[in-house]
């Protein structure tokens, strides 16, 4: 326990460093996106002002020929900035995950974060991960550092992206029966797909607090066994 604890700690420290770098990058990215947004916004304002002036001049001054075109373009830029911003923000959240001293993870928010990040990568394979809205009860907390939980989720998602295509994967977070878990429910039509090869580190995972993935036929279940004695530190 001591050795792996030290190891985990070391890993966390490196991940934290990595996170610090990523955070600094995304921070810069946000700034640049803000510049773009402001520039586009200003263009929109100018366009609007020029339109107003043209109206005021009652036709003496000719309206800008590409007014509508520009409006569309500026709106599109706004949308794309929004999209980039979302990604950057997700990345920023990811970057800050290793900072978190928490020993527990909110499974639903971790799952949400992951799919906001890899959604497009999945879409490239025409896979849609649909996170089922919770049944209303409080979100299951698992006794596992957020980074580890996230990496485990990522591991399963990647394995699915690897073999599936053109389908929808329902993702359900639950705490039924025994342990908190995340189910990746395979589509019925996906039966013909090649078998999902899960990362060995997740399949062979043993011991308290280590996420463990198993194939249950129609779904892949990532279980988070509660650990009675959480490794100190972190």
């Amino acid at each position, binding site marked *: 326990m001591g050795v792996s604890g030290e190891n985990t700690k070391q890993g966390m420290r490196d991940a934290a460093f990595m996170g610090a770098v990523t955070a600094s990058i995304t921070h810069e990215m946000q700034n640049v996106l803000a510049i773009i947004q402001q520039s586009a916004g200003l263009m929109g304002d100018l366009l609007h002002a020029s339109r107003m002036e043209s109206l005021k001049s009652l036709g003496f001054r000719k309206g800008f020929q590409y007014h509508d075109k520009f409006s569309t*373009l500026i709106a*599109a830029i706004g949308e794309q900035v929004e999209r980039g911003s979302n990604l950057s923000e997700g990345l920023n959240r990811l970057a800050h995950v290793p900072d978190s001293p928490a020993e527990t993870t909110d499974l639903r928010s971790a799952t949400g974060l992951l799919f906001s990040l890899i959604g497009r990568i999945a879409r*490239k*394979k025409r896979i849609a991960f649909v996170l089922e809205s919770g049944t209303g009860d409080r979100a299951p907390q698992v006794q596992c550092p957020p980074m580890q939980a996230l990496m485990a989720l990522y591991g399963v998602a990647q394995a699915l992206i690897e073999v599936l295509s*053109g389908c929808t994967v329902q993702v359900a977070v639950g705490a039924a029966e025994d342990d908190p878990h995340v189910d990746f429910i395979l589509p019925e039509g996906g039966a013909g797909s090649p078998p999902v090869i899960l990362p060995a580190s997740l399949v062979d995972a043993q011991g308290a607090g280590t996420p463990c993935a198993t194939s249950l036929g129609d779904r892949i279940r990532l279980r988070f066994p509660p650990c009675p004695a959480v490794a100190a530190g972190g």
Partner: protein
Amino acid sequence: MERKDWNVLLVDDEREFVTTLSERLGLRGIHSRVVFDGESALREVAENPPHLVVLDVMLPGMRGLEVLRGIKAGFPNVKVILLTGHGTTKNGIEGMKLGAFDYMIKPLDIDVLIEKMTEAVGGRR
């Protein structure tokens, strides 16, 4: 060959990107058709073989490199310029091995793109 006679096909699932690019090329006298996925691209190429295909490597469904392979199998004379959002040169180099003319990393400079297009259509490579 004059620019206006070029027959260009743009393939990318980023609609906002590819339609605007097409429009900008149009402003520069380059006519281009646009498709949003690999299957349509292959169909389009078969129906009306273009001089040049600008192809995104990361396409939904059929991967960009598969599309490239398909084009090169049926129409070896069609030049292909690859676009990649991922800054790795890996995909690009792989694509070059499959017969792509060149590759570019997104976001791209339209003047550089046109330079490469000119090279591809007029060049001897």
